[in-house]
């Protein structure tokens, strides 16, 4: 048996308006090289100036992850040549990062575990090489520097993850935290959250680490899981065949569902790090950290525990509802307005998320506002409409955007409590279903439910179910044996 050892390196784009060392916008989706200036183009003579907001967001992330933020950290130059790296070096942090330590709790298979963190540091993103899409792309590559200088934090975990599922869970929990505190938008498709993994396997019981590979391009939870599953299997097979794992960087190819070797790391890269002379050391005062700590929003874990304790929700429901800050606040607003948390949870997790997911719509753009959903819940709770009617009303609300009360009034969907009317319908249904009635009297009591259903159908689901139940039972007991 082999044991898997996985450590993750996650790069998250910080949600700042401007880049980390210049005033250019961080907006994406604009034409190439429209958010550039002497600084982020690396023009001769230009100098970096640190964006305070980037430090704030990075520090908040570090606080949320329980890291120790160092009173002094130092920017360093990571030197290498690449066309998308305009200065020939990346300004990053090296031997004196912003923060070290900290941990993140994961739970897989019902087992909670703390995964240690090594460090959190600030750095700038590079530009983007464009290898296709131009008439001369067969001969030339082009570079878009809009992304050059966008602020990133790199979060490095200890190699304490032992399965692909754990790694995916870690990545997902980390994303929730970064999104919850507003440090990152967590958008993996646009590359604002990226994950690399260091992977090795070793014989069970061994303490020495196996030779690791670095897997790049893991930009979704599913890719993390599938890529690591593949890689762990691959390494295990190599070792079982008596082979040797090569220390290399491998690229995940989601289409082929496998990792490919990218470049060997046998000869270690030498980035010639040294302290960035253009930036003084970054000094952070305790008082400032405390102010940031106090201003942190509730973290997903704490919120989940609160949802269980104060709303009486099951663990699972609380987990789903706290997956994003927007969803959690949607739920809280609905529950408060409806005065019924359990019903709010059921409606959101059942009907609402079902429809939203089907249509690929985020909760932020849900066509039913929390107050509108709460109105619907109150109509059910007050007995104005029946459960089945409520579902129809919900569907109408979703498509038309109208309020629950308006729909109920306009379509006459209010619950029917008129015993005489219900009794007449019951009599008609029993007369039309002689066989079921006979079977009931022969002891096949489950036909009772069938008959109730027939009555409800006959009354378009609007009849008071209690009354229907009572009247069907009475009719059956009183009727001819």
């Amino acid at each position: 048996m082999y044991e898997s050892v996985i450590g993750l390196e996650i790069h998250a784009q910080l949600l700042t308006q401007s880049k980390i060392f210049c005033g250019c916008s961080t907006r994406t989706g604009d034409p190439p090289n429209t958010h550039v200036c002497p600084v982020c183009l690396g023009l001769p003579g230009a100098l970096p100036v640190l964006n305070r907001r980037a430090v704030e967001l990075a520090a908040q992330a570090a606080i949320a992850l329980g890291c120790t933020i160092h009173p002094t950290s130092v920017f360093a130059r990571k030197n290498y040549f690449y066309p998308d790296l305009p200065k020939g070096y990346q300004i990053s942090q090296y031997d004196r990062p912003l923060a070290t330590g900290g941990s993140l709790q994961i739970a897989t298979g019902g087992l909670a575990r703390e995964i240690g963190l090594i460090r959190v540091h600030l750095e700038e993103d590079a530009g983007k090489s464009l290898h296709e899409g131009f008439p001369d792309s067969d001969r030339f590559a082009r570079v878009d520097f809009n992304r050059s200088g966008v602020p990133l934090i790199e979060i490095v975990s200890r190699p304490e993850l032992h399965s692909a599922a754990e790694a995916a869970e870690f990545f997902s929990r980390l994303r929730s935290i970064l999104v919850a505190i507003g440090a990152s938008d967590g958008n993996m498709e646009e590359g604002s959250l990226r994950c690399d993994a260091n992977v090795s396997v070793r014989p069970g019981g061994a303490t020495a680490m196996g030779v690791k590979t670095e897997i790049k391009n893991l930009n979704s939870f599913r890719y993390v899981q599938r890529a690591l599953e593949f890689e762990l299997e691959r390494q295990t097979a190599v070792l079982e065949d008596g082979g040797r794992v090569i220390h290399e960087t491998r690229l995940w190819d989601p289409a082929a569902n496998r990792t490919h070797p990218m470049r060997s790391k046998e000869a270690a890269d030498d980035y010639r790090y040294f302290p960035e002379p253009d930036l003084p050391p970054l000094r952070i005062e305790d008082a400032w950290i405390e102010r940031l700590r106090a201003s942190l929003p509730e973290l997903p874990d704490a919120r989940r525990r609160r949802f269980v304790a104060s709303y009486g929700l099951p663990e699972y429901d609380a987990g789903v509802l706290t997956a994003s800050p927007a969803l959690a606040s949607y739920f809280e607003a609905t529950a408060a307005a409806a005065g019924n948390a359990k019903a709010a949870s059921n409606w959101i997790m059942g009907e609402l998320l079902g429809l939203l997911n089907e249509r690929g719509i985020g909760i932020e753009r849900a066509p039913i506002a929390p107050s509108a959903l709460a109105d619907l819940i109150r109509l059910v709770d007050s007995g104005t409409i029946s459960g089945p009617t409520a579902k129809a009303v919900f569907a109408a609300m979703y498509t038309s955007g109208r309020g629950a009360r308006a729909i109920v009034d306009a379509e006459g969907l209010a619950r029917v409590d008129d015993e005489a009317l219900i009794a007449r319908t019951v009599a008609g249904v029993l007369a039309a279903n002689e066989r079921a009635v006979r079977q009931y009297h022969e002891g096949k009591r489950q036909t009772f439910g069938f008959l109730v259903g027939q009555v409800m159908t006959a009354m378009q689901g609007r009849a008071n179910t209690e009354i229907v139940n009572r009247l069907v039972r009475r009719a059956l007991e009183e009727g001819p044996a």
Partner: protein
Amino acid sequence: MPASVRAIRDAVAARSVSAVEVCRAALDRIGAVDGALHAFLRVDAEAALGRAAEIDADADLRRKPLAGVPVALKDNLCTRGLATTAASRVLEGYDPPYDATVVGRLREAGAVIVGKTNCDEFAMGSSTENSAYGLTRNPWALDRTPGGSSGGSAAAVAARAVPLALGSDTGGSIRQPAALCGVVGFNPSYGRVSRYGLIAFASSLDQIGPIAASVGDAATCMNVIAGPDPRDSTCAPAAPEDFSAALTGEVKGVRIGVPRALVAQGSDPEVISAFDAAVATLAELGARIVDVALPHSAHAIAVYYLLTTAEASSNLARYDGVRYGHRAETATLAEMYERTRGAGFGLEVKRRVILGTYVLSAGYYDAYYVKAQQVRSLIRRDYEMAFEQVDAIALPTSPTPAFPLGERTSDPIRMYLADVFTVGANLAGLPAVSVPCGFSGALPLGLQLVGPAMHDAMVLGIADAYERVTPWSSRAPAIPPR
């Protein structure tokens, strides 16, 4: 025609002479002498005359502190609309889209930028012979170097082509050419003047400063260019002193330290005797002369070349042919890098990039870079301890007068030793001025005064007091026609 910065400005303000006339005179003088000197890489007569006319037409501009003053800029200072090459092939024809902070401040102060001056490529050198565009000659002796790396700026001022020029100083590149050309050169405290727009050589030492015919003119320039800049994080946030106001001519009771052991090392006898005479003059003016020791100065050159080459190897990585400047058209990316940089950089630049890459390499970093930083701290402490006893330290600026062109180009170590008295101030981030203090034959010599960090005005004050009682600054060379 008024000659000094102050006189030109006052005359232009009073309309007794027009900025256009001053500018034409400067352009004529450049035309007359630059064939022999090659101090300028680029002269933009049209833009200069245009700006001069604007100043003449605008009463507000005419009242500015440098109204109508022709200024030359070392070619490693970015100028919008005027090519900036740092004397390198790799930046041939490069037109910066922005002005360096100091350039913007000069323009706002009414200065008229006439052109860009020659220098050693990327300011790497002590003789201006490392320019990709040909060497500059010393106005006092055309077969000799003007010093470097700001040799073009110093020669232009010495030749009275412009009253003021800016240079940059990483290890003596303002002071040494100023001394060798018989003019005043000032290296401000690190952080006193913004580096934004200065093409970096070694970021933790580079400073921009004035070269002028007098200390007073250098101080006037400092009042314009010094001060905080939000674009340079290493620029001091404190408001600068009034440099001109500090020039009282008074040095009574000022304690001046002389590191005798250091001065004796490798200096020409004429340099030592001129230096001794200058110190004696200061004593006559009422300064107290005190012996000081700078024990770690012996290592300053080694530390300097380890740290500056390390920073330079990284600072010059951006010249890769991708975005601007020279690009070799090749089939592969690796070839493009190799041939762009191979053809774009001169020999000395390549030597320093290779040296610096080595210094930062895994396995050598601790032995060279880290050790050099430690010794840099010791050198800084030497100065701090000396400044507990004295207000300023006096040194020769250069151990020799201007040396013959070609003499040291094949002997880099000997060339590097030209900086032996100047690198200390850069390593410690200190203000230091060179003021003319006599001649060795026909060749001018410089007295250097170094002060504590951010005491720039005091250093200028001592130099000014010395200048007032000596004839050296007022001497100008007679440039023989070529």
